[in-house]
Structure formats: structure tokens, C-alpha cells
């Protein structure tokens, strides 16, 4: 009888809502990590898997990450197949039903995003495409707000006692985004309609936000290294459109962008695509601020 009571108590504890303890959040990227931290404050503990200066497509599914996920109440990820190369293995290794698909802690942030570049008929001949849409959406501040609201709702659902804190933190975060964007008005005006070249298709939402005009890519197709003929065509394209800046992420090799820059007189601008990708960019707001200011300077 005693044993039955104990088993019942254990089962009840497994399914019980969290109370005074902190929510344990794991995010796939540093950007989601920072937003989760801002919304959750000291009511959560948060870890991230990919580093900011790492290509989030190619993360090693290390067992130590599985351990983090095994204890998580929430796993928030970018979605749209950005993490498809490593997330299934980690979720399988973590054996945590809370964060499995459909679990209470399964948070696909892309579901609150108006996704760009959905290509339902895409196939692999088009490179490493994301048929369900471009996943680099956090580089638009409006999407940062959407992610924060999603976290607010999810954290409130799992920790009702903290709902007012999550609401207040989210409202404050949204206001700070608005003031950051307002302060960037001169830079945004300088960027608008300016032709630039990007290494990868990571800057599509940033383009939407800033109004810059991406006239070409160093990669001929997503994930495919450039050929000589592609670079020759890109050089002609840059000369024709007077593109002065090549934007690239810190984890790509500079050799090809430098080659193109030498032949066009353009600058190579290494922009952090994520929080903590470069020194001094330690928060989501700093990321947006840094990228806009650096791009505006480069285009001057």
C-alpha cells in the first residue's frame, strides 16, 4: 500500500506544474537565449547550444548538449530546418518528453514569424535550401518582439506565478527595441536602397528591416561554395550595380569575398549574425544596433 502511495506521488510529481523552482530553458542559438533571458529574468535559467560565432546549421550533436536538454523544461529553437542536421539526434539522446515535439516545452519560434522565401517546390538542386522558409528571421527587430511574446506566453503557461513578471519584462523589451530602432533612423536612412552583396542568404530579414538592396550572393546557391565563373559574374554584377559592400558572417572563409572585393573596390564587412558572434555584441539589442551602424559606416 505504501509502495502504491509512493509510486502515485512520483507519477504526480512528474506531471505536476512547476512552482517555485526556476524554469530551465535551453535554446538552440544565442539570440533566442538572450531574448529568453530578458523575458524570463531571474525566474529562469537559460543555456544555448550553438555559439554566436558558429554556423548554426553545423553544430556537433555532443552528448553534453543532450545532458542539458535532458533536464530542460523548455527547448526553444529557430525551426524551419535550421537545426535539422543536429537537433533530431540531440532530442533522441536527451529522452526528455517535455521537449519532444508536441511536449509542453517544445517551442518552435518560427511559428509566430511571418516567414519569407517559402519554397514548397524546392529541391536539392537548388542547394541547401529551406523549403519552409528562410530561417534567419531574428535579424528583424519586429521578429525579436514576436519571439519575446512567444516566450512570455510559454513561460506564463509553465510558471503562472511569474506571468506578471514575464509580461512586464516583455513590454520593457519591446519598448527598448522601439527606442533602439528610433535611434538608428539616420543609419537606416543611409542604408535604404543601397546595393550590397551577401555571402549567404542569412540577411534576407535584415534586408527587409533596413531596406538595403542585396544584388548578389557569394554563394551561387545556399551552402554551395562559389566557382570561378560565378565569382566572375558576381564581379560584373557588382560593377554594374555599384555595390560597395560584401556582407559576410564571421564563420565563413574570407578568401573569396576578399578576391571579389579586390576586383571591385568593395569592402568586406564581417557582420555578426548572432549575439556573441563578435566582442561587444552581448545582447539582442546590441546585435541590431551594431549591425546597422557598421553597415551604415561601410556604405558611407
Amino acid at each position, binding site marked *: 500500500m505504501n509502495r502504491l502511495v509512493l509510486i502515485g506521488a512520483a507519477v504526480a510529481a*512528474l506531471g505536476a506544474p512547476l512552482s517555485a523552482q526556476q524554469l530551465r530553458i535551453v535554446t538552440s542559438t544565442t539570440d533566442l537565449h538572450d531574448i529568453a533571458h530578458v523575458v524570463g529574468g531571474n525566474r529562469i535559467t537559460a543555456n544555448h547550444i550553438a*555559439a554566436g*560565432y*558558429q*554556423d548554426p546549421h*553545423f553544430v*556537433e*550533436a*555532443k*552528448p*553534453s548538449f*543532450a*545532458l542539458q536538454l*535532458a533536464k530542460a523544461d523548455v527547448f526553444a529553437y529557430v525551426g524551419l*530546418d535550421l537545426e*535539422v*542536421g*543536429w*537537433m*533530431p*539526434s540531440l532530442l*533522441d*539522446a*536527451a*529522452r*526528455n*518528453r517535455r521537449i*519532444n*515535439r*508536441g511536449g509542453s516545452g517544445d517551442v518552435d519560434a518560427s511559428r509566430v514569424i511571418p516567414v519569407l522565401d517559402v519554397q514548397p517546390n524546392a529541391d*536539392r538542386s537548388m*542547394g*541547401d535550401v529551406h523549403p519552409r522558409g528562410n530561417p534567419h528571421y531574428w535579424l528583424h527587430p519586429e521578429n525579436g518582439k514576436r519571439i519575446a511574446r512567444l516566450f512570455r506566453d510559454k513561460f506564463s503557461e509553465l510558471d503562472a506565478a511569474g506571468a506578471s513578471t514575464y509580461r512586464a519584462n516583455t513590454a520593457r523589451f519591446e519598448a527598448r527595441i522601439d527606442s533602439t530602432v528610433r535611434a538608428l533612423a539616420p543609419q537606416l536612412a543611409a542604408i535604404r536602397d543601397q546595393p550590397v552583396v551577401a555571402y549567404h542568404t542569412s540577411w534576407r530579414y535584415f534586408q527587409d528591416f533596413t531596406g538595403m538592396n542585396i544584388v548578389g550572393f557569394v554563394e551561387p546557391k545556399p*551552402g*554551395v*561554395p562559389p566557382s570561378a565563373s560565378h565569382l566572375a559574374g558576381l564581379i560584373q554584377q557588382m560593377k554594374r550595380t555599384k555595390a560597395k559592400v560584401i556582407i559576410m558572417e*564571421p*564563420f*565563413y*572563409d574570407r578568401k573569396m569575398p576578399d578576391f571579389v572585393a579586390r576586383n571591385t573596390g568593395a569592402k568586406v564587412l564581417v557582420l555578426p549574425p548572432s549575439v556573441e558572434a563578435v566582442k561587444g555584441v552581448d545582447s539582442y539589442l546590441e546585435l541590431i544596433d551594431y549591425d546597422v551602424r557598421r553597415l551604415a559606416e561601410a556604405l558611407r
Partner: protein
Amino acid sequence: MRTGFLSGVLIALAGTAATAQQPDTTARRDSTARADSIARADSIRLVRELERIRGEARPPHVMGGMIPAQPQQPSNPGLNPSISVVGDIVVDASPDGSTLESARRFDMREVELALGANVDPYFRGDFILGLSDEEGIAIEEGYLTTTSLPWQLQLRVGRFHLPFGKQNTTHRAELHTIEYPYTIQRLLGDHGGKGTGLALSKIFSPFGFYQELQLTAIERFPEAHGHEHEDEHVEEHGFEGVPAEPPNRTLEGLGYTARFRNYWDIGEATNFELSFSAGTGRIAEPFGCEAELTPGHFDPCPGPRGETAVLARQSLVGGDVTFRWRPLQQGLYRSFIFQAEVMRQHNEDPALPAGLPPGAAYLGPIEETTGLYAFGRWQLSRRLFVGARYDWVEASTDVERDFSAISGYLQFFPSEFSKMVLGYENLRPDVGDRVNRLLLQMTIAIGPHRPHPF
């Protein structure tokens, strides 16, 4: 007693339910009949209405009086299993002829068809069929994996790559090299060791680093793919041998393995894994009597129960280390991996059945055999890798010397979904002259994005 009681309760419950469904009074019979009649009329009206709607939707012209099949409603693609196909093509340009199992120069070595999906909230199902000219269609793997057990437990049921050693858990087409290390080929099977049964694993970290214990109970150990084991007997002795009773008749005849993994992050870019494996099982090995006219050749000489094989215990222990370096920022272009495994096989020398004629001998292996390999791979650029491997397998009693091999590999990945490997191997076999192998492998994967192996 308890079963009888339960049956009684079930019968009583069934009886109660059946009684409850019966009309209990004659007075209610008329009203029930009226209600039935109304319901029937409603049903007929609904059927007619549906027929009318379908008739309007039907194409005006029906050829040959045949009714065309109704088009299927599109189902939710998310409910369909993901389907992937991996093609593995090998070209053997070795100077002294083909060294492949198929003896071909150009070999479509295998096509793997993989289907997988969540079955329900509790299980995931994965099925991998291997198609090849030699074996036709074979079930490479097929298992259910639990997705919602508590306490970081996971149960797998079906056929799977045995969690024994490091590389054995990787599919051959996904290896860094063209074939499994020779230690694995010789001690677990050419295609790696597989098992059909149960696998239970648990992850834990009482000391702050990752640890995992994997236990399996399988039909037999080792369960080499394609039953090469029997083929070897047939080739060597001319007969396979049949035991008096199958090994799986008792629990001790099944195969059991255990693997204990320990993993450390040394730094952001480097990590280290040290694991230990052990396995045991009883296998049927033949015995025979030496032929008088052809010394050295053994013929079957059945025991008292007509058996021509005895059950012998075979055990295997092993350890493996893996060191990885991959700087996060330059990880697309630079990485290094070093891996080494050692295995030792122990074979029982079983007693033969009583009453056999003089000269009867056990024909199975009795010696202990050790094998090891060490492998390293350096990434030269985003798409290009170079690797090398050294293999060594201890000599058994009936061969001239230890087996050893030195191999070099150049891997080129046009994309994540295709791979080309150029391999050169210099083999010093346990019998005969050195063998040089020059191989080119092309592997392609189509279908959904496959997780990158770690």
C-alpha cells in the same frame, strides 16, 4: 487462481454490459421500433442526399460504363514517414583484380532505403532495408524506440546495430572509410555486428560529465549480417553443423551486450570519449570426424541426438577512445578526429557429446583473438578531408602471422548529401602475399536532411 478470478470478473462484466443493452420491457418495444423506423428513414434520406451530391460532382462522361476511382484526399504530409535512399557505389581499381566481396570492379554495393516516423506519442519507428545484388533485400535495421520513458531511459525493440564499440554503431555508408575496420569485420561481421532484441539505455551525470549505459539482450551474439558465420563453416568444413537444441532455447543461449560511455568536453573545441563494451552469447559450432581417405578433412559424425554441432560460448570485450577537435568559428573548414578501438574475443572449448567415435574433434574456434585499429582524419578545406588507419588482428592458430593493414583516404564532399572517397590499402594478410587495394567510393543520399553523425 488469480487468472481464473480475473476471467470470472471479465465474463461477469461482459454479461452485465450485454444485459444492459437489452430492452427491458415490452412497453418500450413499440417506441423503440418507431424510433428505429424514423432513424432508418433519416439514414435513407441522408444516403440519397449524398448520392445526389456525388452525382453532381461526378464527371459527365463515364467511359465504358466503368466507374472511375474516387480521387484520394490529400493526406497531411507530416503524417507520412520520411523516406531516404542512400546509394553506395564502389569502384575497385586494385592492381591484382577486384578485392571486393562481389569480385566486381564496378559494384553497386548497397542501396539503403530508410523510412522513419513517429508512431504515436510513445514510439518512433525506423526501418532500413538494404538492397544489394548479393543479398537481395535484407532488413538492415528495423526498430521501435520509446520517446517518453521517464528517468532518461530509452528502450529500443527490433533489429539494430549493436552498441558495441564506436564505429560499429555507424552505417557503413556513413563511415569515414570505405569499409569497417578489419577488427570489426573479423570479430563482429563484415557489415558490422547487429542484433535483434531489446536495447535499454540510460544517460546520467553523477560526476558532472556525460555517462551512458547501454544494455542489450538479443537473439544471438554476434549476429553477423547475412549469416557469414555459417558460410565460413560450410566453406571450411563442407557442412554447417546442427546443434541438438537451438542456442536460444534457454536464456543463457541468448546474446547480451553492455556498453558504458564516458564523454568529456575538454574545451569549447575539443572533446574526448572513453567507452567500454562487453558481449557474450552461445553459438552453434560444428564438430566432425576426420575422413580416413582425406586427412585434414572432417565429415559430420552425429552425436547421440543426431547433432553435428555443439553450443560454445563466445565473448568479446573492448574499449574505444575518440578525440575530436573542431574550432567553432572555423568549424566549416578545420577539424580533426582520432579514434582507436581494441577488442578481445574469447572462445570456449566446449565438451563434445559422449559416445562419439575416436578422432571426433571440435571444429569451432578456441583461441583468444585480439584486434585493434587507430584512425585519424584531418580536414583540409570545407569539402576535403584526408585520413589514415592502421589495423591489426592477432593471428589464430591455423594461420601464418598476424593480420595488419595500413590505409589512406581522401574524402571529398561535393555537398552534405554526396561523398567521394579515394582509398588505398596495403594489407598484410595472415596468409599469403601482401595485397594492395585501390578503391573509389561514391555515396549519395536523397530524401530529407539526415542528421550529421557524431
